[in-house]
């Protein structure tokens, strides 16, 4: 009766094979489905003598067509693609928001317009039109900085939120994988084949790899373990869930849930992209933007605090709100001096006093600075610090103050050695063009013994030295007309006149007489004024909070254009406008414009590189997918051919059984 069993086994095998073909065709478009093949083996029946007779066909099993190497590579590439795509999408958004080369009011344009407006102001610093133009240009530029700064900050918040959502999906997939592992193991441990469950599990693994870079390891009974970075998130059916959060450096990281041990360097997948964007790409862009805004604020303010505008010196100045009053907390304040100039508005008498900053224990807080100004050292000016750590400086009635580096009309320091019977009046004028604070010392020489008269004594001269080094001789004897200006150097002039107001008729000098002229290039060597917001142009410290100080925007005449004693020059406006072409060490030795252009092109380069990377990975992935499809995919033609084979097999086996039946009938008729 083996013929019957042979026929039945053939029919059964052909039917099962057709089922599998049908299943393959039905899943031809199912994501993650792996083509299945029936494994047939000849069935052993009996041995008769030396003959071994077959017993039909056995179904050895149904195999998933899988190439593990390709599957692993696809996971890896899928992960990279997820990361690059996420980075690319965000960077594209950033690039579009910067809007360079397309938008007419992009930041580069507003930076240029601001400095150009300052240059316009140089042509006429008292003209309200130019002053207003500077304010408008500055506010536009600051607004553009803030827009970009807020966008980047918003993007970082969005990234954190997106990462939280993604980690939720990761945890769900981890749970699914572990559950499927459990089911698969239970089936396969009993010798079964859990092909469809494996497909489902593998599809989850692929989805996981799109979210984050993973490592997988296949164990016996079809179980797959998954690791994310150093964390074994799935081991068989046990799991470790993950969470995202910010570490102490405000960097986004992934940690086992509840452990708060954030790994900020996870690679791969969308989460890898989000981490890379938050911790590196966007962070660098924002840092550069903040740095640029900070440098413009700092450099502008450093110049601005020392000048005055067309509205002249001040009766009151209030600094901005500070978090601390301890000067060591201000990164831009160093040991030095701020020099305050106080003018009697009636007599025009001017005095200058050095305010010590971080010189000792009594000059390291704002209150101590205010006390010094309030004290006897600085007459006719008072100062306080309020509860918001704002420094407030007030001039007494009839006085004004400023921090101008203008030379005082009389030589400094006040004690001078003029020993002649009727010494001349010495007047200093001009605007110092040097770059460091210096002292010009003038010493009378080459006169005779006793009094030597200016304009009379042949060869009488002033030996001029700058910071101790001789620079020139100025002849004030015969040939010098009293009252004429003499060029001291670096934009400064002195003149020696006869003191007619005191009924003098001569200007007498003696050999060795000397006087000093202090020339100021910087009246805030400590940086304290700019740091606490005294007479600053911009407020804030980064792209997020840069703004034109309200007292400047409401009173454009406060734009500090002048440095000279008559406050009509444009020297400070020139210095501020010159920042446009100034290489700044804080900007890697570039000008503000160049630094920004570099930032924009760096973003462009990032986009380009990511785009190329995405294109490359897409090609690799496509080829791998094709390769995988060759092995695991469903080819309709192939399945149709298989179907024909097994259909014919079925028909043949049916015919065979019919033949056997016929044989048996014939045999029965013989009986």
């Amino acid at each position, binding site marked *: 009766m083996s013929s019957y069993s042979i026929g039945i086994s053939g029919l059964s095998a052909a039917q099962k094979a057709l089922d599998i073909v049908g299943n393959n065709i039905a899943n*031809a*478009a199912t994501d993650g489905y792996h*083509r299945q093949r029936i494994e047939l083996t000849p069935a052993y029946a009996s041995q008769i003598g030396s003959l071994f007779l077959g017993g039909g066909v056995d179904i050895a099993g149904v195999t998933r067509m899988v190439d593990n190497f390709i599957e692993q590579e696809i996971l890896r590439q899928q992960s990279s693609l997820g990361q690059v795509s996420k980075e690319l999408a965000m960077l594209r958004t950033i*690039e*579009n928001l910067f809007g360079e*080369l*397309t938008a007419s009011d992009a930041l*580069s*344009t507003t930076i*240029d*317009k601001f400095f150009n407006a300052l*240059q316009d102001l*140089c*042509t*006429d610093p*008292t*003209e309200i039109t130019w002053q207003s133009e500077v304010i408008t240009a500055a506010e536009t530029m600051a607004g553009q900085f803030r827009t970009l700064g807020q966008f980047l900050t918003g993007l970082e918040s969005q990234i954190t939120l997106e990462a939280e959502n993604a980690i939720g999906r990761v945890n769900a997939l981890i749970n699914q994988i572990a559950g499927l592992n459990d089911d698969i193991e239970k089936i396969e441990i009993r010798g079964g084949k859990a092909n469809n469950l494996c497909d489902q599990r593998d599809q989850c693994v692929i989805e996981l790899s799109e979210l984050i870079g993973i490592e997988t390891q296949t164990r016996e009974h079809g179980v797959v373990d998954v690791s994310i970075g150093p964390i074994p998130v799935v081991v068989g059916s046990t799991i470790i869930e993950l969470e995202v959060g910010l570490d102490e450096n405000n960097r986004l990281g992934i940690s086992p849930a509840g452990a708060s041990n954030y790994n900020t360097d996870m690679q791969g997948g969308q989460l890898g992209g989000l981490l890379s964007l938050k911790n590196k790409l966007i962070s660098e862009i924002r840092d550069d933007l903040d740095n640029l805004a900070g440098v413009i604020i700092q450099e502008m303010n450093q110049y601005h605090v020392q000048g005055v505008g*067309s509205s002249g010196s001040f009766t009151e100045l209030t600094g901005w709100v500070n978090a601390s009053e301890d000067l060591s907390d201000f990164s831009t304040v160093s040991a030095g001096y701020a020099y305050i100039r106080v003018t009697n508005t009636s007599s025009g008498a001017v005095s200058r006093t050095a305010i010590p900053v971080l010189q000792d224990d009594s000059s390291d807080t704002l209150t101590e600075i205010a006390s010094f100004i309030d004290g006897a050292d600085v007459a006719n000016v008072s100062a306080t610090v309020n509860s918001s750590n704002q420094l407030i400086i007030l001039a007494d009635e009839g006085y004004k103050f400023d921090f101008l580096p203008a030379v005082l009309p009389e030589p400094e320091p006040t004690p001078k050695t003029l020993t002649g019977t009727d010494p001349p009046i010495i007047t200093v004028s001009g605007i110092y063009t040097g770059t460091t604070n210096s002292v010009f010392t003038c010493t009378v020489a080459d006169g005779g013994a006793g009094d030597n*008269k200016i304009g*009379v004594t042949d060869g009488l001269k002033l030996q001029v030295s700058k910071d101790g080094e001789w620079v020139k001789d100025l002849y004030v004897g*015969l040939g010098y*007309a*009293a*009252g*004429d*200006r003499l060029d001291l150097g670096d934009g400064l002039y002195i003149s020696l006149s*006869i*003191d*007619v107001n005191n009924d003098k*008729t001569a200007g007498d000098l003696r050999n060795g007489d000397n006087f000093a002229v202090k020339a100021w290039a910087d009246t805030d060597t400590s940086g304290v004024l700019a740091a606490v917001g005294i007479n600053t142009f911009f407020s804030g410290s980064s792209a997020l909070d840069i703004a034109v100080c309200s007292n400047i925007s409401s009173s454009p005449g406060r734009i500090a254009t002048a440095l*000279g004693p008559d406050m*009509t*020059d*444009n020297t400070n406006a020139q210095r501020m406008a*010159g920042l446009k*072409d100034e290489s700044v060490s804080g900007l890697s030795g570039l000008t503000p*414009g160049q630094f920004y*252009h570099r930032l*924009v*092109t760096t973003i*462009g*380069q*990032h*986009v*380009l590189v990511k785009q190329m990377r995405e294109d490359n990975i897409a*090609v690799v992935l*496509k080829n791998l*997918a*094709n390769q995988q499809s*060759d*092995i695991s*995919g*469903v*080819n*309709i*033609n*192939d399945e*149709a*051919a298989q*179907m024909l084979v097994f259909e014919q097999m079925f028909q043949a086996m049916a015919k065979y059984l019919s033949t056997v039946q016929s044989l048996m009938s014939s045999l029965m008729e013989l009986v």
Partner: protein
Amino acid sequence: MSGTLSSIYNNVSFALNLQMEAMARLQEQASTGSRINRASDDPSTAFRVLGLNSQQRSLENYMDNLSQAISILDLSSHVLEGQGGMIQALVTAKTSLTQVTGGIFAEDPEGRETITRGINEILEQIVSLANTKYTGHYVFGGSNSTSAPYVVQRTDGEITSVTYQGSYENRDVEVAPGMMTSVLYVGEDIFRSNNRGDPIFLGNTGAKPGTGTSSVRGDTWLTVTFNDVSGQYELSIDDGATKVAVPPGGDTNQAVTDSQTGRVLYVDSTQINSTGVEMVRVPGTYDVFNTLISIRDTLRKTDLPNADELQTNLLNSLDEVHKLLVQNTVVLGSKTGFLENLKDSLQKLKYDAEDEVTRLEEADIAQIAVDLSRYEVLYQMALLIAGKLMSMSLLDFIR
């Protein structure tokens, strides 16, 4: 086994995406006319374009500043040499003065007074010109453009002195990268000579120049009087406000100071032998205003013994300031010419920058059209093949 359903789908969708992306890029280039619409299109070129755009804006600003500087300098030149300008006024003054020195009105008091009034009007005109404004700002006050640089003092309605109260700093403006130029000049540099010579005493008192360097400017009137009480001659250059006594035997270098200006005149008083008023002129120190004041006042002093000599010297003073203004006109003119040339150069630089940007950015429309049609063909081909492959299989032939 190639030709599985998913691989066909993968290949087709990949190809279609590629063609679509390429066509979208080309379409953007065609619609904007620019092949670089964002930095990522070509970062290195974008860096250059950004720099060039910035340069263009900067050059435009420089040219605006230059235009303004040229306008101010044109106005300044016009004040000096234009119709009704200072030089023309000085020529008129000189003609009038020549009529006096030539004797036409020498003996005609009414004619002299007419000429004197004419000189006074010229003085008023010149002071007004020196306080010329450009868009509300004084052009000869140096960096102080908000207050009138020349302030006058009047007695009985007539100007008796003109004082410069502007700044001694020129208003410098950057007109090209790293190049500063003065736009608003210091009036004192334009209207006053600064080439001091030795004083010339024009009188009969016996006073001579002292050995020291005097600081008085232009014309100074030295008054020599005799003090009956002390029996000494006394010297004054401020109309007797302060007097200096001549010591017995005189002094070869006696300082006589002006109590108002603080200026000093060194006098050799050893040969003073009579009283009187003596004009002392210091060549190379004249300014336009005080010269005219001096001419006007001198013409009124009909009792001066050496009137002819004085008038001749007044002509010399007038010549000096006339020459000064002509020289400064040339300076202003050549500065204007230089700035015009500079503006042309900057304009050319700007055009060059624009050309360069266009060259770097501009899309090749013909090339784009060719590329677009190529990608269209490829796109259609991909669709067609996909349609064929998807629609045809062995199943079609199983009956």
